[in-house]
């Protein structure tokens, strides 16, 4: 079974309409609880404007592990949640973009510091979500942490790669600088629950954009835990917002929102992305398509999955002219 078919199958099992025997939730914030103590479970909520609201719909959907075990109920976000998140992102954008690059750099590094402290929890969640070995999950989590460190270092460097001084033929000083695009919608990859998300989110926010993320539908839990890290990492509220839920109920609204400047559909399925691209035209969104060879063969661990040019996908180049004279 292909990964996508597996995902579809999981999504089907998650249907609220399906009749099936009740089963207990597994604890996923850390190793599955065993023994006498009754575990304290976590409520997986949305992340909007720095707060953790439940979805306004009051609904949830069941999230299953790769082995079919019921992990948790996740919030089934709605169009209204998307809109609240866009409002929060727009509000946060100006201040985040105005931070010094040095400051954004330190805050991204801080994210890595706090993820490191929760390394075991992330590993357990990724194992449960993706059904991979502990060793492989650990490599994924480590790569995700290292990715924040790597992009943290780019905050005050990428403008020197993308910006230029332009030798115009006249008495003018002319330069081009990259600026963040604004509010970026991100369709998180369905399969790579943590590393895939971090690989798309970090390059979007390092330049000063604010993000609204639609998480993986079948594997949303590591993403929710990531927002708990973001909330305590000096990332201003609203810079990153996360909506969990059924993707078909969410992504079109994000793609069509008139106050979203760009859409990263790298994590979307190819046919899904084509529809989103068309919707995104309404306000001429910048649009990033899935890889031409498909996501299934995309290697998130590869060096090429991180690049300063990915920062460039969500910046605008502004060119300034000024006369030179007495």
């Amino acid at each position: 079974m292909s990964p996508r078919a597996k995902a579809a199958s999981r999504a089907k099992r998650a249907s609220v309409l399906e009749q099936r025997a009740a089963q207990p939730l597994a604890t996923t914030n850390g190793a599955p609880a065993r023994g006498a103590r009754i575990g304290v479970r976590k409520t997986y909520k949305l992340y909007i404007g720095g707060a953790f609201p439940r979805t306004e719909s009051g609904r949830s959907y069941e999230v299953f592990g790769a082995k079919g075990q019921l992990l948790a109920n996740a919030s089934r976000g709605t169009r209204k949640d998307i809109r609240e998140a866009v409002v929060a992102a727009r509000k946060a954008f100006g201040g985040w973009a105005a931070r010094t690059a040095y400051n954004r750099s330190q805050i991204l590094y801080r994210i890595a510091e706090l993820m490191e402290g929760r390394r075991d929890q992330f590993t357990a969640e990724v194992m449960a979500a993706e059904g991979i070995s502990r060793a492989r999950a650990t490599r994924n989590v480590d790569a995700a942490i290292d990715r924040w460190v790597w992009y943290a270092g780019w905050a005050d460097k990428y403008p020197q790669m993308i910006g230029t001084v332009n030798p115009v033929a006249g008495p003018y000083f002319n330069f081009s600088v990259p600026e963040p695009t604004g509010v970026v919608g991100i369709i998180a990859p369905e399969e790579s629950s943590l590393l895939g998300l971090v690989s798309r989110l970090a390059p979007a926010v390092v330049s000063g954009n604010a993000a609204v993320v639609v998480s993986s539908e079948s594997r949303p839990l590591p993403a929710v835990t990531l927002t708990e890290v973001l909330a305590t990492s000096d990332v201003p509220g609203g810079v990153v917002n996360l909506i969990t839920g059924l993707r078909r109920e969410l992504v079109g609204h994000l793609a069509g929102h008139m106050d979203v400047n760009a859409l990263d559909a790298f994590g979307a399925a190819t046919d899904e992305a084509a529809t989103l691209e068309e919707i995104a035209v309404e306000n001429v969104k910048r649009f990033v398509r899935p890889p031409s060879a498909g996501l299934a063969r995309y290697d998130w661990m590869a060096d090429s999955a991180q690049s300063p040019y990915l920062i460039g996908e969500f910046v605008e180049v502004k060119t300034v002219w000024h006369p030179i004279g007495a």
Partner: protein
Amino acid sequence: MTLTKKPESRPAPSSWGLASGENPWQYAPAPEATDHIRIEPEYGLFIGNQFAPSKPRKTFTVINPATEEPLAKVAHASRADVHRAVGAAREAHRSSWSKLPGRERAKYLYRIARILQERGREFAVVESMNSGKPIKESRDVDVPLAAAHFFYYAGWADKLEYAFPNRDPRSLGVAAQVIPWNFPILMLAWKIAPALAAGNTVVLKPASTTPLTAYLFADVVRQADLPPGVVNIITGPGEIGMALVTHPDVSKVAFTGSTAVGKMIARALAGSGKKVTLELGGKAANIVFDDAPLDQAIEGIVNGIYFNQGEVCCAGSRLFVQESVYEPLIDKLKARLGTLRVGDPLDKNTDIGAINSAGQLAKVQELVESGIAEGAEIFQPDCELPTRGFFFRPTLFTGVSQSHRIAQEEIFGPVLSVLTFRTPDEAIEKANNTPYGLSAGVWTEKGSRIFKMVSAMRAGVVWANTFNRFDPTSPFGGYKESGYGREGGIHGLGAYLDLSGGNGR
């Protein structure tokens, strides 16, 4: 046109020392010679270095907007012609152009730049005859800049690895390029020069009212001895442009034009995988602070909105004046408008030529009438207009509010909307209150304020104490609904390359 208010006559300022009622700006006619120009009675499509009629043979007439006289007939391409043109480009990319070393491609581009310079006056005259723009502009701006673009990008052709380190730059294939009528030869150069430098081949569709310099350029292609099929030029209405950009063998689409058409194209291309850049409309703010050098600012405002009859996507069509200098500035501006010479585009003294088409003139008139109807106050100098051709007086509106159509919609004509502000923050708020984001202007003597304003403008090009400057090395393109991608500079080069590298991209 029907205006409810008679145009005012403004006296020259008393400081000029003129007798009352004396017009200081009497110019004898200074017509540019046209006897060296040869315009063919009919132009076929230019495919594979050959001119040939469309199949089935069909033509439309191109006119001079200043006289309404026909200039030539040009081929009306069919879908089959589009297919032939793309096929010729695809074959040229496969068999010759993509295999040519960059340094050899460069030499072809240098040749084109040189020939454009050699034939500069011919291009300028034909451009003015076909587009209506003043000869001094086509001669001093459009044509020299077009040549400069080829010269600039020629130098990139063999240096792509240095431009994009670690990205394995590769040509994309066939570039489909659709350009507007406001800067016909300059937009052609903006499109074709980087495309060829990057190793792509081209099918270009000029606007249907202004194809003549593009077909003249086809002759340059032949003189430069480019391999057949590297540059192909076809003419026809919008649906032919749509057929071109959606053709399955096209890998890259570049469009300059209205936001509405840009959206149609982007929708049609969704999911196609074609690389797209769009340079769309604008409604630029030109912001004048009370410490600005007013006389320079007046020249910048005039250049910002009346350059090329205001038919400029980056035109400074919304003037924001700090309230404390509003009255002296408006007085000076009205006096300056009275000195603008409107008329024959081929007269070397003309400042404002003809509007490009009857349709565009009607659109400008309609928006001007909406400005009057919505309560803004119109001012037009009392200048004579030629009796034939599509002419429109330079116009300014005062008392404009943010909600007026003339403050929101792109007019694409010589019409300025004047608004006021008190504080820098108010200016920023108002200037950015538009779905467009192509350009902006700031006038102040205070350096730190320039940088505050420049940073706050959500626009791709910001001119400080100047306006409407262009250069091949200087990236140009918009934020928001003004499009995406940049033309010019190293950024414009990247738009014509596959930079995705490995890892399934």
